[in-house]
């Protein structure tokens, strides 16, 4: 019975092949651009661990990881990764890596208070720590070597400037996670430099139809809105859909990149994207830890090393499309 069903399924699967898109197209592309991965150095095999505040299934942190892994291969590093969005759980994960006596740590300080005690323990144990992404303000005080990331307020300010340049009057900032400090900072930063008016709206990020209908409702109730600012790549496309449904010709702009955003920039659905280059955050963190172990190097001189904001428009998108597809931009 089961076998029959399976056979039937496979049969229809083979009969119903798609000649466009799909995995085969991807494999063809991959064969053409195969890249090798071998260590470029002969330093001992150190172990570095990364612990972030990422939730499950977050595309952004996927790109950070792929940067870190690439650097780990090159630097002959064993790379470990764990994540939890709860501050105290994240601290426990760090503790477990401390117990394993790793040679270097990469952490995010989205919830700095929860991380205070493990940061102190790492310092005591002489394990070098680099902070990435969030926590630039507290990174140094808590004993980290360097912070690598984007200052969210500065990134927001860059958006405000760009909106002024584009002659925008009223923008809607779509916050997809209520209570996330970084997202608030982006909106506040934009509001600071933007000459027009900026309004916030909170939507349920785990529920795409809710994101769409809420933005739709907002655009219908306020016809003056000429710009929608999404704060994450997956929400840009949905915002565009909402604008179309609401019959609004507001420009959609977004933070962060993915393959769809690159394509949408190219065909003009999106105005611009603000990239903080997550690949760089992972890559640089591992590389700097290696440099520190190998050569006692420190970067930034106590100040955060910024990986963004980089404003990406139609002109740059063509070049980046291939990189977003392979998941490194």
């Amino acid at each position, binding site marked *: 019975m089961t076998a029959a069903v399976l056979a039937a399924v496979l049969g*229809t699967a083979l009969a119903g092949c798609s000649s466009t898109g799909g995995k085969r197209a991807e494999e063809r592309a991959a064969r053409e651009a195969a890249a090798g991965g071998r260590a470029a150095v002969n330093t001992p095999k150190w172990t570095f661990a990364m612990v972030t505040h990422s939730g*499950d299934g977050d595309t952004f942190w996927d790109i950070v990881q792929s940067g870190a892994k690439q650097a780990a291969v090159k630097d002959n590093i064993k790379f470990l990764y764990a994540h939890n969005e709860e501050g105290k759980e994240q601290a426990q994960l760090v503790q477990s890596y401390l117990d394993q006596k790793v040679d270097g740590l990469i952490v995010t300080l989205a919830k700095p208070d929860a991380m205070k005690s493990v940061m102190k323990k790492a310092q005591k144990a002489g394990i070098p720590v680099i902070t990435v992404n969030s926590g630039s303000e507290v990174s140094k005080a808590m004993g980290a070597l360097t912070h690598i990331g984007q200052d969210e307020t500065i990134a927001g300010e860059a958006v405000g400037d760009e909106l002024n340049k584009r002659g925008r009057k009223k923008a809607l900032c779509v916050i997809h996670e209520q209570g996330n400090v970084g997202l608030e900072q982006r909106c506040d930063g934009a509001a600071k430099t933007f000459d027009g008016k900026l309004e916030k*709206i*909170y939507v349920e990020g*785990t*529920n795409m*139809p809710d994101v769409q209908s*809420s933005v739709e409702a907002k655009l219908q109730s306020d016809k003056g809105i000429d710009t929608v600012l999404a704060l994450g790549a997956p929400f840009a496309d949905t915002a565009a859909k909402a604008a179309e449904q609401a019959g609004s010709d507001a420009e959609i702009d977004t933070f962060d990149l993915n393959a*769809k955003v690159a394509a949408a920039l190219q065909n003009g659905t999106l105005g611009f994207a603000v990239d903080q280059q997550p690949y760089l955050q992972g890559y640089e963190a591992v590389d700097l830890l290696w440099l520190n172990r190998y050569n006692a190097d420190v970067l930034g001189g106590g100040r955060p090393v910024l990986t963004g904001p980089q404003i990406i428009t139609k002109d740059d998108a063509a070049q980046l499309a291939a990189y977003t597809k392979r998941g490194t931009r």
Partner: protein
Amino acid sequence: MSAQAPPVQEELVGGPPVRGSLARRLVGRPELGAVVGAVAVFVFFSVVADAFLQWSSFSTVLYASSTIGIMAVPVALLMIGGEFDLSTGVLVTSSALISSMFSYQMTANVWVGVGVSLLATLAIGFFNGYLLVRTNLPSFIITLGTFLILQGCNLGFTKLISDTVSTKSISDMEGFPSAHKVFASHLTIGDVEIQITVVWWLALVALATWILLRTRAGNWIFAVGGAKEAARAVGVPVARTKIGLYLGVALAAWISGQHLLFNYDVVQSGEGVGNELLYIIAAVIGGCLLTGGYGSAVGAAVGAFIFGMTNKGIVYAQWGADWFKFFLGAMLLLATLLNWWVRKRAEESK
């Protein structure tokens, strides 16, 4: 849960409505209070929000309601049958992920993926129901387990298969345009654009209402939810009914999942968590009892509509965004209180 439920009063066991004068029949319907609540919410936002009374706004509200409503219908039936399902939110995402990844990995026509997803989703629903009737454990525990398993599988399999946490775009594959038409297009009626999910929603409500009120299976659902042991004693197939209810939930999850996939093209594996509560909320606002044995599909639909109107009405009214959840909670509580009050009056006058 139903095992511990106290014996339900005679008139509370819904069943086919009592025949008699129209007023009497109306008073006996579980959705009466919800309809009054819906009218109140509608009038309220028509007054306080300028943009609420536009055709385009109406279409947005209907869309928001329908995405919850499609799931609220089978969830209501399940609750009438005395059980819960906590895995519904992520099951929708699983269903979308399965069709997307199967089509992509096999480079198959997307309809093949859609079919495979239907089988897989029904299998998960069957698993829930079968485990429940075999073990007699509370559905709360069993579906909580399924919820976590699915949440893990959604992420784990997606990562394993596509190497990222969201699926690849399948919009350039064969079959996508026709599937998009079925699951994610919109119809233009006069000046109004109606999303196809609204049609799916209304069709499900009609089907569920017919089953509940006009078929033997409907009687069984009320019976197993109201008094399981008594139902078993008079020969109601309790196990079959409960498994059927979980299959119904799976079917609706499949429809919602395909909408997600074909409307947004790419599915993120972390989506859907928390939505299971929205479906239950809609059913409860619509008059379903948390203890089972009482409720209606129309009520659940009205509940979803109340939720959709409130959720979007607050945006139309341009109230402070920081307080959104507060307003949402307060409005829903008020609507439900009104619902409760109307029903109590109705019962007294009977």
